[in-house]
């Protein structure tokens, strides 16, 4: 058993009293920050009859109103920014519920802390400055690439910023530059693994030793598969653009849950229906408060991820609370190829293109890659005796969906009334993935 390594041992293994003291102080500071600098928050607090003086520490956190994705949409783009834009240096972005994207802002300090969080994850996976770290997450508005890239730099790894795609080139770099750590979505890791297997490579011929995989749900079985094919240890990482990106929590050698970086984020579990805070060990919706964020602080942000927290002592020595892999969603968001997809976004596109809002989404995982199929009913207006024209319409729809979602969705035109009109809640999504 190799010795456990930490990026910031004094923080990651701090006493619970110390962690609570940091959280108390930072929470109080953050509440004052948003009260002073974000009218949107001040209004929300005033509506609850709260002033910053009511929040004296973590024990008062439950008094604060929640922030939801709807708030982010309403406040888009600058409504929740707590620093002058001249102090902000970056945005990252993810899908919103109905087309409006979520745009998160960062000061240089925010980026530093975010990269620290990612560095903790890399070191927890055994990374040192002698490692070669290939970042095969997408770079750009998506936080995966930039986050792990920054973390890898902080650790001092030789970083290969391949971004996603072009699997042959990925494999070439892994082999030629002896990459030892791979960061990407679990499905892409599985795909890379299978491609290598097809090339006749055995695990001992692959230099990788660890992988940090996140941005989508994956099962224990999938972990075993990836570990066996690539001959690595596969670590989970969790995060949300709204809070910073990957690195809100990360797995250690114990592989029994992800340690939440509690010096930056306070986690709560609530009943998604009533909003009541649930006692430790109970399953509910995960809520985060970012207590060190300067530009884009979120208080009690509802992640919609269903989760359980555990304070059980971890064999790795870290004292941060652990969260399980998210067990589901309390809303209808789908994560497809690591991208957040809301059925409402698809509905927006369909209506704009003259189709009925009656549709069905079929999500599947074929060869470890997520697929999305949108079944939509043909309408008299969109119908033509000319097959070419129908094809053209279909291509327009595919392009509009790609523009909205950021991923390819296959469109399947079906006859009217084919899609069941269910009574009450429509069955919009059929998720065939076994995760």
């Amino acid at each position, binding site marked *: 058993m190799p010795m456990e390594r930490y990026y910031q041992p004094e923080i990651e293994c701090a006493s619970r009293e110390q962690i609570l003291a940091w959280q108390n102080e930072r929470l109080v500071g953050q509440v004052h920050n948003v009260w002073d600098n974000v009218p949107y928050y001040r209004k929300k607090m005033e509506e609850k009859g709260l002033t910053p003086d009511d929040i004296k520490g973590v024990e008062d956190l439950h008094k604060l109103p929640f922030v939801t994705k709807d708030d982010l949409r309403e406040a888009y783009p600058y409504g929740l920014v707590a620093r002058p834009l001249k102090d902000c240096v970056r945005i990252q972005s993810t899908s919103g519920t109905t087309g409006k994207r979520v745009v998160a802002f960062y000061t240089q300090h925010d980026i530093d802390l975010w990269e620290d969080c990612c560095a903790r994850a890399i070191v927890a996976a055994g990374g040192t400055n002698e490692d070669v770290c290939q970042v095969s997450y997408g770079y750009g508005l998506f936080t995966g690439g930039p986050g792990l890239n920054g973390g890898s730099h902080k650790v001092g790894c030789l970083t290969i910023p391949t971004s996603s795609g072009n699997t042959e080139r990925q494999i070439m770099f892994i082999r030629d530059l002896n990459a030892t750590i791979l960061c990407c979505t679990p499905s892409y890791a599985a795909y890379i693994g299978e491609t290598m297997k097809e090339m006749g490579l055995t695990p001992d011929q692959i230099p990788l030793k660890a992988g940090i995989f996140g941005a989508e749900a994956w099962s224990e079985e999938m972990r075993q598969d990836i570990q066996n094919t690539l001959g690595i240890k596969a670590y989970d990482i969790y995060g949300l653009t709204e809070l910073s990106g990957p690195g809100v929590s990360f797995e250690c050698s114990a592989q029994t849950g992800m340690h939440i970086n509690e010096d930056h984020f306070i986690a709560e579990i609530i009943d998604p229906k009533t909003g009541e805070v649930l006692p430790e060990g109970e399953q509910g919706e995960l809520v985060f408060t970012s207590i060190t964020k300067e530009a884009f602080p979120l208080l009690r942000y509802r992640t919609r991820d269903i989760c359980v927290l555990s304070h059980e002592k971890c064999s790795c020595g870290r004292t941060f609370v652990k969260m399980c892999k998210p067990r589901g969603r309390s809303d209808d968001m789908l994560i497809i190829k690591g991208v957040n997809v809301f059925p409402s976004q698809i509905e927006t596109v369909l209506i704009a293109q003259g189709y009925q809002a009656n549709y069905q989404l079929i999500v599947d995982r074929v060869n470890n890659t997520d697929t999305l199929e949108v079944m939509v009913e043909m309408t*008299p207006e969109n*119908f033509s*005796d*000319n*097959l070419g024209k129908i*094809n053209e319409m279909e291509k327009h729809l595919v392009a509009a969906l790609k523009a909205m979602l950021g991923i390819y969705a296959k469109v399947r*035109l079906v*006859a009217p009334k084919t899609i069941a009109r269910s009574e009450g809640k429509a069955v919009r999504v059929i998720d065939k993935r076994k995760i």
Partner: protein
Amino acid sequence: MTVYQISVFLENRTGQLAEITQILADNQINMCAISIAETSDYGVLRLIVDQPQKTTSILLEKGFILSKTPVTAVMVPDRPGGLAPVLQLIAEGEIDVEYMYSLFTHKAGNAYMVFRVSDNEKFTALLSQNGIHVADRQELGIGD
């Protein structure tokens, strides 16, 4: 008297075509021509029937999506080279053929071809100038 084709959206699944032909049979509707254009997921069924209005209203009532399209039924001699001059005219007249198919007929010695072209007026004018016969509804036994 323009000949109209009824185009019906077909989902590519077992039994769709049988369903439509059964509806036509049950309603004593006779088909004069049938053709299908398809992709792997869906298709367009093109029909010329003896009772277009009745067919349209029955299929609409059954929830099918359809459209009516004017087409040109051209009579050509039923012998080698019978169709070639027509297509030659189309090529010379720079008219685009969107699609074409044949029509069932009992008239000895002649065949009918159904054309959907980019410019219908130009096409019929060109045909009559060259003494090629364009069939009307009555000739094909098509009612209202």
